[in-house]
C-alpha cells in the first residue's frame, strides 16, 4: 500500500514512522524549512518530498496517481480540505483522511470536500480524557472504530456488585462482552456461567454505554468523599 502524507509536523512525522514500520510505501510532503531539517533526522531521505502539498504539480511529482490513500495532517484546516478535494477530484485517490485542527471547522470534513475519514484531534482527546475521569479504575487498552468502541481492562474491587454473579446474568449483552478473566496471573476465556472474584482482572470490548454499565457493576460500593489538601493561607 502506498500512502501520501501532507504535512510534516509531529502528527505527520509520527504517522510516517508508524507506516514505515508496517512496511508501507510512504511519501511525506512538506515545504517549511525549519520542519524539513527535523524530518531529515527522523525519517529516511527518500520518504521526504520538499514542496507545497497543495500544489497539484507537486502531488503529481510525488506519485499521487499511484497512491492508495492521502492523509492530510497539516495544521491548516483549509489546506487539509483543499488537498482532500484535489486528491479525489483530480487524481481519484481511493481514500482520503484529513485532520481537523479547529473543532468549529469539523462540519466541513465530509463529502463536501471529498473527505472519507476525518479525525478531530481536540474532540478525540477530550472524549478520551472524559472517559478516563468517569470510569475510575478502568483502563482503556485501545480504541477501535475511530474511538466508538474500546478494549478496556479493570480490576474487580472488594464489595463490587458483580462479585459472585454469573456473567450471563449481568445484563451487558448488547454493549459489552467480557473477553477474558485473569485470576492469579492465569488468563481464562469466560463462559456464561463464569463468575468474578475480588482481585480478578477482566478485559472487555465495550461501547461507551457498555463501558459505563460495566464500571457501575465493578465500582466501589461508595465513592468516598474527599477532604484533601491544606488550605493555603
Amino acid at each position, binding site marked *: 500500500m502506498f500512502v501520501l502524507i501532507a504535512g510534516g509536523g509531529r502528527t505527520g512525522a509520527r504517522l510516517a514512522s508508524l507506516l514505515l514500520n508496517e512496511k508501507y510505501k510512504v511519501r511525506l510532503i512538506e515545504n517549511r524549512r525549519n520542519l524539513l531539517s527535523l524530518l531529515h533526522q527522523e525519517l529516511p531521505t527518500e520518504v521526504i518530498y520538499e514542496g507545497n502539498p497543495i*500544489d497539484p504539480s507537486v502531488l503529481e511529482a510525488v506519485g499521487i496517481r499511484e497512491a492508495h490513500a492521502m492523509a492530510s495532517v497539516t495544521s*491548516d484546516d*483549509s489546506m487539509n480540505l*483543499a488537498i482532500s*478535494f484535489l486528491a479525489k*477530484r483530480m487524481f481519484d485517490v481511493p481514500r482520503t483522511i484529513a485532520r481537523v485542527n479547529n473543532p*468549529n*471547522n469539523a462540519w466541513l470534513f465530509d463529502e463536501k*470536500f471529498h473527505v472519507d475519514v476525518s479525525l478531530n484531534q481536540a474532540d478525540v482527546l477530550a472524549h478520551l480524557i472524559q472517559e478516563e475521569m468517569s470510569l475510575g479504575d478502568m483502563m482503556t487498552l485501545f480504541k477501535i472504530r475511530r474511538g466508538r468502541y474500546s478494549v478496556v481492562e479493570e480490576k474487580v474491587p472488594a464489595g463490587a456488585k458483580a462479585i459472585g454473579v454469573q456473567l450471563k446474568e449481568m445484563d451487558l449483552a448488547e454493549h459489552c462482552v467480557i473477553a477474558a478473566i485473569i485470576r492469579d496471573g492465569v488468563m481464562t476465556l469466560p463462559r456464561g456461567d463464569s463468575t468474578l472474584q475480588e482481585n480478578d482482572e477482566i478485559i472487555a470490548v465495550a461501547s461507551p454505554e457498555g463501558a459505563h454499565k460495566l464500571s457501575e457493576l465493578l465500582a466501589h460500593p461508595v465513592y468516598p468523599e474527599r477532604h484533601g489538601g491544606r488550605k493555603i493561607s
Partner: protein
Amino acid sequence: MNLIVVGCGRVGAELSHRLFKGGHQVTVVDSNRESFNRLHPDFRGRTLEGEGLAENVLDRAGIKEAHGLAAVTNSDTLNAVVAHTARTYYHVPVVVARNYDPALRVVIEAFGLQTVSSTFWGAQRVEELLINPSQRVVFSAGNGEVEVYETSVPESWGGRTLAELMEPLKQCYAVAVTRAGRSSLPDVGMVLQAGDMINISSTYDGISALTSRLAGKAEA
C-alpha cells in the same frame, strides 16, 4: 444586494467600502479584529469577527440570504474552501475567490470557481507600463490573459495596409481603427495613416511583437 466579504486585508477593505458606497448591504468577516481598522472611516456596513470556515460565523454573516460572496483573504486554500462552501452548500448565487499566489491559481480553478488573480494581474500591468509605455490598455478580459490595447500608427507605417502590419503576427487582432474621431471596423485592405488609433485585442506576447514591429524601421 446582501453581500459578504471574507477577509479584511487591503483588498477586502477596499472592496467592502466600494460595495457599501454602491448602496449594498455589506458584511465583512475577519478573524482578526484589528483588520477592521483598514476600513474606510465612512464605511457603515457590518463587521464580524470570526473564522470564515465556522458554520456559526457564516450563519451570523447572513450567508443563507446572501446574493453574493467574495473570499479575498491572502490564503488561496481558505478562499477556495470558503467559496466552494458558499456555492455548493449554501447555493449563494454569485461567488468570487481571490487568487493570491499565482502558483496556486490551478487550485482555485480545480474547484471551478470564478477567480481574480490580483497579484498576477498587478504584476502584468506594471510590466506593460514599464516595457510598452506607448500601449494603453482599454479593456482587460478574464485575468488579463487577453486585453484590448490602443496604439497609434507612427509615420513609418503611414501609407501601408493594415494587412501588411498585422499578417505576420499571431495572438493579435485589430478590432477598431479611429481616424479623426470616427471609428470603424477595419478591413484588412485599409490603408493606414500616421496618427490613426488602432484597437488591438491581444495577448501579452502578441502586443509585445506588435510594439517592436511598429517601432522597427519600415521594412522595404
